[in-house]
């Protein structure tokens, strides 16, 4: 089966940002996403999940342009919130779906 390239954007964020990030990526053109409850540790010395509930990992397969926009949107939260974002290359079969 022929595969095409797509970009997987992964965001790991404190739960508080869940709904805001989901709305954002929808608005920026992602056609779907997958959400996982996770725990994590990063540069912030406190674990948000203690009172907010578990953190979330949001994965969305998109075209490169959309990926770029999502990264920029997430970057706005870097200063005050526990959140990271990274990109990986993926191959998909139904390219129009993403």
């Amino acid at each position, binding site marked *: 089966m022929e595969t095409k390239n797509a970009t997987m954007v992964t965001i790991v964020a404190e739960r*508080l940002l869940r709904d*805001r990030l989901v709305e*954002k990526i929808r608005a920026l053109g992602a056609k779907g996403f997958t959400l996982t409850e996770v725990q994590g540790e990063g540069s912030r*010395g*406190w674990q*948000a999940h*203690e*009172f*907010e*509930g*578990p953190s979330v990992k949001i994965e969305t397969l998109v075209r490169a342009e959309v990926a770029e926009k999502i990264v920029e*949107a997430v970057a*706005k*939260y*870097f*200063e*005050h*919130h526990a959140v990271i974002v990274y990109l990986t290359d993926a191959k998909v079969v139904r390219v129009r779906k993403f």
Partner: protein
Amino acid sequence: MSPAEILATNLLSPVVLAFGLGVAATLVRSDLEFPEPLYQSLSIYLLLAIGLKGGAALSVTPLTVFVGPAAVTVLLGLVTPLTAFAVLRAALRMDRINAGALAAHYGSVSAVTFLAAVSFGEATGVPIEGFMPALVALLEVPAIVVGLLLARGAHARPGEGEGSGSWAHALHEVITGKSILLLVGGVAMGWIAGKERMTPVEPFFVAGFQGALTLFLLEMGLVAARRLRDLKEAGLLLVAFGTLVPVVHGVLGVWAGTVAGLSEGGAAVLGTLVASASYIAAPAAVRIALPEAKPSLYLTASLGITFPFNLVLGIPVYFALASIFGG
């Protein structure tokens, strides 16, 4: 009862012992963990249960009896964030943002501390007004609003952009947040249904309550003890703040409750409420509206210092005070 006996009654109660067991488990590095959904389920159960009980009691309380304590409670919710803020700014020289964040917590209320106080009243045979849960709901919100206003000061920017906190969002969060929703919803349900229609659900919501609370406090012990690590960092001043301000608020609450016509037990519980610091509704709202405030500060203070302090020492003290004021 002598002061020593009162203290012993509290320390030997299942609720406080369970908390102690949780702390001990963390200290010996046990692998005991509460699954997250159990914690959430117990929260939902406890909040709904106290709402239902309070609402059912309210349905048989004449308005005239309720209105005084209610007014006093709202007043206390507006005043106590101010005292907390003043102390933090003057004595701890804390910046405005973090002081406002803490003020929101100390003006608001901890439902579990409330429950521990009610348990204590039952164990010592001091009767308590049944409508007290309605006061919890009244005390929870105003202080948070005041605290946020204090933090933002003249710089309040309503509806700010992304990546930063929005006022409207935070307010919505407090008012529709699950703790208020379950508490107020429970009160409404209990009040509408009335005492008699609640009978079939009593074995679940009333008889099982004390045990579920005990289990919950085991988890609270686990959680609070994890905060103890942060105490060193927090410093002595924060410890002093987290124990002295609650006592001041507690005295205020007991006195105001007595004046407003609450019974001895009711005044003691109101004192406890006022003395307690929120660690659910307030952190959620503060995190939204004041993302630049340090969670390590307000969580350590409310959950790591004030919660155990009230549970172990505060509650018996407020009951002792109420018996003096009321006598």
